[in-house]
């Protein structure tokens, strides 16, 4: 058998339609406000995200940032994960039609040894296929079936010849959606992409875990992770239980370029998006403490965050109210942190360091330049450079 799709037909007793193959990612070419962001967090009204409980208004960090700019930066490691998804075919299984999805997953962590030395520390890139659970013709465990199927795929000449290997076949639910709403939100494509996304997040956690195990993250060498640390509840994966791995995040800061300002609440749980929009340059908001939605996601365990915002670019020089504002998150680890929030000094130092990361900019290369931090941008570019080209990948099938 020379092609993956032929092998799939054979193994799943299905038939492929040889439909158009394409990249399923929506190109995020315009900076946008992330209204889709998870609403799983609730603010803890009775607690503060930091020890300085008197801080009510934005705090200007210009001087701290200036003083710190001559010292060694706090952040030495930068982590970014991304995935690229493809719809490679439609397959008929038991008279129902499912999309065959595939993806390239990559997570990279780069190390900055000096201003001029930026090197890859860890990288993991995986190729995955997502199939409906229906694809398993047997009643036995799907995991075993899909694992065997993966091995057979990797033995195909065409795959071997190019030196590529698939690392996993992910299984998405083929349950028929009940309600109309479900039909919209749980399109099979979306389910499959979500599986691929989860796989990437798992990969991210794995790399953080590796870095911690190697003992290279410490109080002088923090890791800056691109995106939120608010991991969605996951059903599968090696690192699905965040409470068990949260110690790995002692020296990890999450910085989001895109966020939903609507979720920024004041202590009365009222939205205060305007406060972010009007944040002065090089100032941060007070940190607030958030907690996962314990009622619905109790299985995740109890973990809390401190979240605050900082403006790193002058509002008059950016093209939107939230361009130039970053959302910063840190998972609270110790009991004291869980009670009183982060030390305000630490919050200041972290924020000042992030302010100092503002230059150079990727203006002209990325429309999100005002919210991008250059080392993160470099990590992202490095990761992208490691992907197979779309046409190469699609032609594996």
């Amino acid at each position: 058998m020379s092609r993956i799709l032929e092998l799939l037909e054979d193994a799943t007793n299905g038939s492929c339609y040889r439909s158009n193959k394409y990249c399923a990612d929506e190109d995020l070419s315009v900076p946008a406000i992330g209204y889709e962001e998870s609403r799983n967090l609730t603010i803890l009204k009775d607690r503060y995200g930091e020890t300085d409980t008197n801080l009510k208004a934005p705090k200007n960090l210009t001087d701290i940032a200036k003083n710190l700019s001559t010292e060694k930066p706090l952040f030495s490691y930068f982590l970014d994960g991304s995935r690229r998804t493809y719809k490679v075919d439609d397959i008929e299984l038991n008279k129902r039609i499912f999309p065959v999805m595939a993806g390239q997953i990559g997570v990279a962590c780069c190390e900055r040894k000096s201003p001029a030395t930026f090197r890859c520390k860890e990288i993991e890139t995986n190729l995955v296929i997502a199939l409906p659970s229906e694809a398993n013709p047997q009643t036995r465990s799907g995991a075993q079936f899909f694992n065997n199927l993966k091995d057979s795929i990797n033995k195909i000449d065409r795959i071997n010849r190019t030196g590529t290997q698939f690392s996993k076949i992910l299984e998405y639910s083929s349950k028929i959606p009940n309600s109309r709403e479900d039909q919209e939100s749980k399109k099979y494509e979306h389910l499959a992409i979500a599986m691929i996304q989860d796989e990437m997040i798992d990969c991210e956690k794995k790399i953080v875990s590796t870095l911690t195990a190697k003992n290279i993250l410490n109080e002088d060498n923090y890791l800056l992770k691109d995106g939120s640390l608010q991991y969605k509840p996951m059903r599968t994966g090696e690192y699905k239980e965040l409470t068990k791995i949260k110690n790995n995040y002692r020296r990890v800061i999450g910085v989001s370029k895109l966020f939903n300002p609507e979720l920024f609440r004041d202590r009365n749980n009222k939205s205060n998006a305007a406060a972010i929009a009007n944040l002065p340059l090089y100032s941060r908001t007070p940190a607030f403490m958030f907690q996962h939605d314990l009622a619905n996601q109790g299985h995740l365990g109890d973990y809390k965050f401190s979240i605050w915002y900082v403006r790193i670019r002058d509002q008059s020089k950016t093209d939107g109210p939230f361009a130039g504002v970053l959302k910063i998150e840190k998972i609270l680890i110790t009991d004291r942190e869980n009670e009183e929030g982060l030390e305000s000094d630490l919050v200041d130092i972290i924020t000042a360091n992030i302010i100092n990361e503002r230059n150079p900019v990727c203006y002209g290369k990325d429309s999100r330049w005002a919210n991008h931090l250059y080392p993160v941008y470099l990590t992202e570019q490095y990761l992208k450079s490691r992907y197979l080209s779309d046409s190469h990948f699609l032609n594996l099938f």
Partner: protein
Amino acid sequence: MKQIGRIIATEKVPTTVDEFYFWTNKELIIRPFDVVKVQHIQESITFGVVEEISHLTDTSSSLAGFISSDFGDVTSREYTQRIGMNYVRAKVVGNSKGIYTPALDGYSVSLATEDDVKEALGLNDIQNPLPCGYIEMYEKPDNIMIPVHFNSQFLIGPEGAHLNISGISGLAAKTSYAMFLLKAIQTMALKTDESVAFVVMNVKGRDLLAIDEPNDSLPADDRKIYRDLGLDTNPFKYVKYYYPFSEDMTSSTYGRRNDIESQMELGKAFSYKYIFEDDKDSLDLLFSNVDDPNQTIESIVNAIVTGQGGFNGITNWNDLLKEVQAHTVAQSGKEKEITVLSWRKFFRLFRKTLDKTTIFQNSIAKQKKETRLREAIKNIRKNDVCVIDIAKLDEETQGFVFGDVMRAVYDLKLGQMELEEAEIPSKIVIFIDELNKYASKDVPKSSPVLRQLLDITERGRSLGIILFSAEQFKNDIHDRVKGNCATHAYGRTNAIEISKPDYQYIPAVYKSMLTRLKHGEYIVQNPVFRSLLNIKFPKPIYKQFKHG
């Protein structure tokens, strides 16, 4: 083998049979003309010569650079330097297995060893080696120094002949380079019994008036280089100096009286004169740069040489001048083909020359070390170096002497001087600086000196007359003169000159290098080398006069 980068082949800029591109660390120092080697298929190695180096970053526009400094704050600092690399373009000069498919993306690029460089540039199996300088490559501690040799058959014949050196006066060291090559040729000739003689025109100060005396201030490093190149550190041997005659010895030369006298005592210096009886045939050379569209000057010279129209029986320059003057008086019915006006012009020019120069004399006193240059050339034997001083002569007389010397050498080689074949050196190298005076594009086409030069550059290779010439601006030189030179050495020059068509085929980065070459550095082109070479040579081995 130090790896310095990897090949980049992109959609827009692919590697080709002729060139390849690679990245290096932005702090790596590499220079144009450095040789690099690239792994290639079938375990072969492709060699390239660096042509251009650019530094590039991911900055999409200049504006991004401005924004990256907090919108124009010159004191802003950054934790991360922008990602950047050096992007190098190299020209393919060879492959160890003759495989000329383009270098492949991602293959390793490394510095070359001495043997690699020799193989790459075709310097390893040169026949009849003649040192022409050395190449220095890379930065410490990887630096290497490689002696470079011409194949002498491509410099002084019979395969290829003539050398042209160009470069700005003072900065390019043209004379020093020519003399370095002459020294190398003399050393080689003495070792191999090759029969070569040299005629060197001294056109500037005392530059070449002590080439058989050692340079006491030659640094030890340069002495070592001479030895590394296989040359001894002695100055020229078998040198004879010819000074233009003047009563006080010094009014026609920049040489010091006591120097000249002591050279004369040692029997190696002479003063030269031109005697009407013997040298009138060369009279045409005196008017080389005079525009003569109707060939009237030529007719007058012809009349004098053949003794027509009253010129019969003249035996000295004074009588000649009187006779010419007689023709300047309007006389009806006489000499209609040459107008009185032409005679007057001739008279004016000729009188000016006789007034200014003292080399036109009526007799020779051999006991006073006086001679005719023709005699000197006739007596030239292998390994001899004749230095003819024309530095203080006026321009017309300089041309006259140079033309006469070339003519004498030509006659000698054509066997018109009644000498045994074995006595005549099989090759005579003539070195002339300021070639633009005699062979520029502005020189009248009828100029006998230009004709003589063309004869030498076009036929000299087979006759064994080799021209080493130098000038400031190559572009000014007559195309046929420079076109016939097998070897070209480009020294430091200026931006206007490199914009001229002569430099069209030189890659842009080499061109700009030409404007900042150091003293003693040349870019050399020779048929034996696979590409242009950036060579250096040691300081002169003979006595230097600091103030000319």
